C-alpha cells in the first residue's frame, strides 16, 4: 500500500502520488485505468467534447479528465454509477445517431466507436435511429467523407488547422444539425485540401477514410494484357508488419516483395531508386542555384501534399519549388517512357501500381501533367493499409511469406533513397550528394543527426567549398507555414528547405496502419535509419544503376532529356473554382464578353464597384443589350487588380473611375470589330 503524502490524490480510494501530470486523464491512465476517449490526442489541443473520459471528483461532481488538472487531495472515482451513466449514455447517443452499417464499413474492425461500444457492452439503444441521410463526399482523389458516420469529436478539425495549418474542415450549423464540413458545404476536391489524409488518420470512425482502390488493383492483376508492376515506397517496409502483429519499425522489405509477387505482380520494384535519381536531379538544381546566387531557398518537391499546399498558398514561392517530380512520378515516367520500350511494349500495356504510405500520392498520380497521351505514368496508388487488405483477402500468412528481392533494373538502392521515408531524409541524402559533388572529396561522416527526429524545425549548416549552406527541415504543414512566415519576413534565411506534410514524414503518412502514438512513429523512424545503416551503399551518387540510367536514357542530371522525363512545372491554385455569375446576358449576334474578377485581391481593391459601374456605363452607352457581363473568380492578374476580361484579353487596374474611359477605348471598339 502506498503511503499518503501532501502530494497524493486518491483514485478509486487508492493513494497515488502526483508527478507533474497535466491532466487527470494521464494520471488515471498511469495507474492502469484505461479511460476511454474520442477527442483526446496528445498532439492536439484539449477539446473536452466527447465526455467519455469523465470521472467523478468528490465534492465537485462529474468532470472531464482530459481538461481537469489534478490537485493534491482530490478523491477521484473512475467507475462510479454516475460516471457509468454518463459514459454509457454518451455511447448510446452517439450510436443512435450513427449510421450503423458496421459490417460493410471501411473502418470495420478498426473503429473506435465500435471498439468502445463493444468494451462497454452496449447491446441496446434506447433512442431512435438517425433521421437524416447526408450525401457522401467522394470528390477527393484520396479521402471519402461520410458525414453520416461523423461523431463530431473535432479531431480532424484540429488536426487540419492546428497541426497542418490549413483548416479546410470546421463545424457548421447548430444543435443536432451540426456537421463537420468544408466551408459553404463545398466538396473536399473544391477546397484547399492537400490530400495529406491526416484527418482520416485521427478519425475514430468511418467518417473520413482513405479512398480504397483495391478493386482496381485486383482488376489489373486479372488482366492478361497488362504487365503489372509495383513500386514500393521506403516507409511501407517499416510499417506493414504492424498490420500482421509485428513490431513497429520492423523491416519487412523482403516479405513485402514476396507478398506482392504472390499476389500476382509481374515485377516488384523499389521507389528508393527513384529517390536516388531525385537526389541527383535536385542536388544539381540546388548547386546551380547556389552558383547563380538565386534568391531564396530551394524547396523540396517530393511531397505531393506540400506541393499542392504551395500551389494554393504561395504563388511567389512556386519559383523556389524544385521542379523535380516526386520519386513516385519519376519512377512512373522511367517505366513508361523507357522500360516499356525496352520490353517492346506500349506504355498502356504496363500498369504501374505504387504502394505508398501516403494518400496525397493518389491525387498526385491523377495530375494531368503526369499523363502522356491519356496514359498515366502511375496507374494506381495503394496505401500500406490497402496492401495489407489485399494480403489478408488473399489468405496469405504474412509471417510465413518467404522474403524475396526487388526486380532489376529498379531494384538496387542506396541508404540515401531509403531515408526519404523519414522527415529529414531527403535533405540528408541531398547533403551527402552535394558535399561530394561540390567539394570532390569523399564524405566520411554520412549521418546528419541534427536534421533527424521529431522536432518541428530542424537545421543543419554545411560548408561547401567555403560557402555555408543552411538547410532547414520541417514536417507538418503548420510548421511549414511558420517557416514560410519567417522566410517572408526575413527573420530566417536558408538555402535548402525540406518539407514533408505529415508530422514525422512519410512514416506517419495517412496510408500507414492507423497509429497516432509517438512511440510507433519513433519506432518506424528507427527502422528507416537502421535500413540505411545496413545498406551497402549510402549515397545516391554511388548507385550504379542510376548511373546506368543516365548513360542509357537521361544523359546527365538536369539535361534536356532529364527535364522532359523527371521534371515538372507548377501553377497557382489561388482561385475559387465554380461557375461565373451571369449579370447581363446578350442574345445579339454582335456582342462582347465582359468579365470582372471578384477574387480576393480584386475585391479588396474595389472590383465590386467596378462591376456596378460597368452595368451603369453599359446602360449609359446604350450597349446593355450587347454585353455578356459576368462576375468571375480570379483571372490571376492579382498584382494589377481589379482585373477585367474583354473577350479573351485581360486588362488590369480597372477601378470604377476608369470604367467610363475603358468602355470607350476597349469595349466599344471591340463591338465595332465584331460587327466587321
Amino acid at each position, binding site marked *: 500500500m502506498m503511503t499518503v503524502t501532501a502530494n497524493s490524490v486518491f483514485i478509486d480510494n487508492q493513494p497515488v502520488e502526483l508527478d507533474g501530470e497535466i491532466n487527470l486523464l494521464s494520471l488515471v491512465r498511469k495507474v492502469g485505468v484505461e479511460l476511454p476517449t474520442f477527442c483526446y490526442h496528445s498532439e492536439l489541443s484539449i477539446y473536452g467534447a466527447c465526455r467519455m473520459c469523465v470521472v467523478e471528483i468528490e465534492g465537485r461532481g*462529474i468532470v472531464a479528465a482530459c481538461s481537469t488538472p489534478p490537485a493534491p487531495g482530490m478523491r477521484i472515482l473512475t467507475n462510479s454509477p454516475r460516471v457509468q451513466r454518463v459514459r454509457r449514455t454518451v455511447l448510446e*447517443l452517439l450510436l443512435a445517431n450513427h449510421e450503423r452499417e458496421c459490417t460493410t464499413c471501411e473502418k470495420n474492425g478498426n473503429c473506435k466507436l465500435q471498439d468502445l461500444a463493444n468494451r462497454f457492452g452496449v447491446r441496446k439503444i434506447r433512442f431512435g435511429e438517425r433521421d437524416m441521410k447526408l450525401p457522401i463526399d467522394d470528390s477527393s482523389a484520396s479521402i471519402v467523407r461520410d458525414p453520416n458516420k461523423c461523431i463530431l469529436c473535432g479531431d480532424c478539425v484540429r488536426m487540419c488547422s492546428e497541426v497542418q495549418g490549413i483548416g479546410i474542415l470546421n463545424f457548421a450549423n447548430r444543435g443536432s444539425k451540426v456537421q463537420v464540413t468544408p466551408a459553404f458545404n463545398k466538396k473536399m476536391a473544391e477546397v484547399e485540401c492537400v490530400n495529406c489524409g491526416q484527418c482520416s488518420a485521427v478519425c475514430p470512425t468511418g467518417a473520413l477514410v482513405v479512398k480504397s482502390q483495391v478493386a482496381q488493383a485486383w482488376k489489373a492483376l486479372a488482366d492478361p494484357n497488362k504487365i503489372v508492376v509495383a513500386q514500393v515506397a521506403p516507409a511501407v517496409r517499416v510499417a506493414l508488419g504492424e498490420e500482421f502483429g509485428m513490431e513497429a519499425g520492423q523491416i519487412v522489405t523482403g516479405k513485402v516483395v514476396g507478398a506482392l509477387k504472390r499476389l500476382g505482380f509481374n515485377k516488384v520494384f523499389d521507389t528508393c531508386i527513384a529517390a536516388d535519381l531525385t537526389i541527383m536531379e535536385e542536388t544539381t538544381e540546388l548547386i546551380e542555384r547556389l552558383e547563380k546566387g538565386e534568391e531564396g531557398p530551394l524547396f523540396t518537391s517530393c511531397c505531393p501534399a506540400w506541393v499542392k499546399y504551395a500551389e494554393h498558398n504561395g504563388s511567389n514561392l512556386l519559383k523556389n519549388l524544385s521542379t523535380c517530380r516526386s520519386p513516385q512520378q519519376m519512377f512512373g515516367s522511367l517505366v513508361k517512357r523507357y522500360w516499356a520500350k525496352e520490353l517492346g511494349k506500349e506504355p498502356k500495356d504496363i500498369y504501374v501500381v505504387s504502394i505508398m504510405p501516403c494518400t496525397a500520392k493518389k491525387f498526385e498520380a491523377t495530375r494531368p501533367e503526369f499523363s502522356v497521351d491519356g496514359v498515366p505514368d502511375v496507374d494506381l496508388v495503394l496505401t500500406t493499409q490497402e496492401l495489407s487488405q489485399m494480403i489478408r483477402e488473399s489468405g496469405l500468412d504474412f509471417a510465413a511469406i518467404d522474403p524475396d528481392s526487388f526486380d532489376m533494373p529498379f531494384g538496387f538502392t542506396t541508404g540515401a533513397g531509403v531515408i526519404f521515408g523519414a522527415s529529414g531524409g531527403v535533405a540528408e541524402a541531398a547533403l551527402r550528394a552535394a558535399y561530394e559533388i561540390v567539394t570532390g572529396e569523399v564524405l566520411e561522416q554520412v549521418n546528419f543527426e541534427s536534421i533527424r527526429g521529431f522536432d518541428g524545425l530542424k537545421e543543419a549548416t554545411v560548408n561547401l567549398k567555403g560557402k555555408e549552406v543552411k538547410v532547414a527541415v520541417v514536417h507538418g504543414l503548420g510548421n511549414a507555414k511558420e517557416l514560410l512566415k519567417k522566410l517572408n519576413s526575413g527573420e530566417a534565411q536558408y538555402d535548402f528547405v525540406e518539407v514533408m506534410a505529415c508530422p514525422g514524414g512519410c512514416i506517419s503518412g495517412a496510408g500507414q496502419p492507423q497509429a497516432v502514438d509517438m512511440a510507433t512513429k519513433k519506432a518506424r523512424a528507427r527502422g528507416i535509419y537502421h535500413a540505411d545503416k545496413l545498406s551497402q551503399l549510402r549515397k545516391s551518387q554511388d548507385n550504379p544503376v542510376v548511373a546506368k540510367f543516365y548513360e542509357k536514357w537521361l544523359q546527365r542530371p538536369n539535361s534536356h532529356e532529364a527535364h522532359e522525363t523527371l521534371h515538372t512545372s507548377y501553377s497557382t491554385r489561388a482561385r475559387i473554382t465554380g461557375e461565373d455569375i451571369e449579370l447581363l446576358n446578350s442574345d445579339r449576334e454582335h456582342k462582347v464578353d465582359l468579365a470582372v474578377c471578384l477574387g480576393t485581391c480584386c475585391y479588396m481593391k474595389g472590383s465590386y464597384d467596378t462591376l456596378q459601374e460597368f452595368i451603369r456605363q453599359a446602360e449609359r452607352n446604350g450597349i446593355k443589350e450587347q454585353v455578356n457581363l459576368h462576375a468571375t473568380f480570379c483571372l490571376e492578374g492579382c498584382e494589377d487588380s481589379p482585373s477585367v476580361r474583354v473577350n479573351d484579353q485581360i486588362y488590369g487596374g480597372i477601378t470604377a473611375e476608369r470604367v467610363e474611359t475603358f468602355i470607350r477605348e476597349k469595349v466599344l471598339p471591340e463591338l465595332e470589330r465584331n460587327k466587321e
Partner: protein
Amino acid sequence: MKIDSRETLNTLGKTWKEGFAKETARILVCAGTGCVANGSLQVYEALKEEVQRRNAYVTVEMLLEEEQSGTTVVKSGCHGFCEMGPLVRLEPGGILYIKVTKEDAAEIVTALLEGKGPVERLLYKHPITGEIYAEESNIPFYKHQTRTVLQHCGVIDPEDIREYIAEGGYQALAKVLHEMTPAEVCQEVTDSGLRGRGGGGFPTGRKWEATRISEGEKKYVVCNGDEGDPGAFMDRSVMEGDPHKVLEGMAIAGYAVGADEGYIYVRAEYPLAVQRLKIAIKQALEMGLLGENILGTGFNFRIKIKEGAGAFVCGEETALLASIEGERGMPRPKPPFPAQSGLWGKPTLINNVETFANVPKVINDGAEVFRQSGTPKSPGTKTFALTGQVANTGLIEVPMGITLREIVYEIGGGLRNGKRFKAVQIGGPSGGCLTEQHMDMELDFDSLLSVGAMIGSGGLVVTNEDTCMVEFARYFMNFTQNESCGKCVPCREGTKRMLEMLQRAVDGEGRPEDVEILEDLAEAVKDGSLCGLGKTAPNPVLSMLKYFKDEYIAHVVDKRCPAGVCKALLGYSIDAELCKGCSKCSRVCPVGAITGEIKKPYRIDSEKCIKCGACVSSCPFKAIKEG
C-alpha cells in the same frame, strides 16, 4: 470638453445639476425598444412641437449655457412597463402617462403648462381594482420594486453624458482612481458579496481578484451583453437606458484587474443598445472619462463593442470569448478559466451587464451599505423580466430574498382573468419551475438552486391552469436543442433525444417506458455536458418531472392532456343533453366522423376524428366539448 481631474468632474457635475434644475418642467418620452416599436418617437416629436408652439420649449443646451428656464422634452430609457407603452413621464411630480399617442400631445402639454393637473384618461388604471394612479412610483407594479440598477432608466436621457454626471455619475470611478488601490477595489467588491447577475451567481469579487493576481502585461475586461433567453430583456434595458453606468463599472473593473481594454459583447438583435453604447463611449472618450490618462491619474481604458450574431451559447463566457476572437462560438473547457487565459489567451475578467451596473453603487456607498439589501448570501437587488399570465408584465427590480408571492401578486397584480396560479418558470430554458409550495420561499441564488431552478438570465414566466407543463418543457427543450453549439455529445445528442420524447408525448405518441428513460437521460446530460448551457438544459424537464410528473404520465400512459392544450391528445365528444340533433356538425366534419339521426343526439367516432375542431365552432348549442 475634457474632464481632466476629479475637481473638474465635481465642478461640472454641480454646474450641470444646477442647470437642469432650472427647467420648469420636463417631459420624458420612453425611447426603449418596446415603446419605440409602439410609436414613441412620433409621440416625442409631437410633444416637442406642441411645447415649441407654445414658446415654452428649451433645450438642454439652452438650460446649461444661458440663463433661461422652460420645458424640456427628452427621450429616456426603458421604464420596464413595456406593455403599457408608449410611456411619458412628467417632472416634477413623476407623473406617468401610459399608451400615449401623438394625438394626445396637445392635451398633455396644455394640462402641464396650464397647471391643470394630469390628464386622467392617460393614467394607469389597475386592471383588477380599477384604482387610478398618477405618480409612477405609486403604481403597485413599481411600488414594490427597489430600483437601484434601474434607477436612471426612464428618468434620464441616456444619450447625454451630462445627465449621468449631474446625477453623480463617474464619481465611483474617480473614487477608485484617487483613493483606492486595485487590491482594495477587489476587496471592496468581495466584501459587498456581489454575485454574478448572469445567472450562475459566482462571487464577483473573487473573479476580480483572480484576474488581478493573474500574471500578464495585457488583460481584458469583457462585458457580457448577450442576453439570449427568450423573453428576457433586463440587460438590454440597462444598456439602452443607462449605458454610462455599465461603462463606469467596466472602467472600475479595468483599474482593479489591471486591464486597459474592454469589450462589450452585445447581440446584434439589440440595435438600440448598440447605438446608445456607441454614443456613450464616444461621449465618455470626448470627456476623457475613457481613453488615455483618465482624470489625470495615468489610468488608460478603452472600450470596444462587438456585436454578436445571435447564438444563445455565446452568452456562455468561453464561447463569447471565442466569438470575439472571430471563432465559432463554442465553449472551451475550464480550466483554464478566463481569469487565467481568456481573450486571445490573456487574463480576462468577464461579467454580465447587470453585474457591472451594480459596481458604481458598491463603490459609492461601500460594501456595508450594499449588503443591507437582499439576503446575507445574495446581497443587493436583481432585475427580472416578468411575463406570462399576470396582470402586469414588464421589467422589474427587486431585492434578493423577495418571495414569489410578492412578485406575482403585488408587483404582477395577480393572475389575469381570475385564473388559478400553476407555476413560474424561472431562468428561462436553463431554469426550472417554482410552484404553489414555493410561494413564500425567499428567492436568491442558493434557495433556487436547492429546488432545482436557477436565477439564470432572470426570466419569470407565470403560468396558469391552462398551461400544459409537458408542452412548456418541450418548448424550452426545442429552444436549447436548436441553440446547442453541438460541441459536446450529451448536449447535442441528449437534447435532441429529450426533445424527441417530449415531442412524442405532446403528439400523443408517448411510450410508458419514456418516463424512466427521459429522467435518466436528463440526469446524464446534466452531469456530462461541457458547459452551462448543456448542464442546465435538462432543468425544465427535471423540474417538470419533479412537480408535474402526473401530467407527463397522463400524456404518455393515459394519452390525455390535463390542461387541454396538446391538440393530438384532445378528444371531442357531444353532450347528449345539449345536442338537438340538428346535423350541422356532421355536415362540416371533413372526414365523416360524426353520425346520427336528425333530432337525436349525434356521436363522434374518435378513431376517424382528426381533431380539426370544425364541429365545435359549427354547433349552435355548444354541445361539443374538447378534452
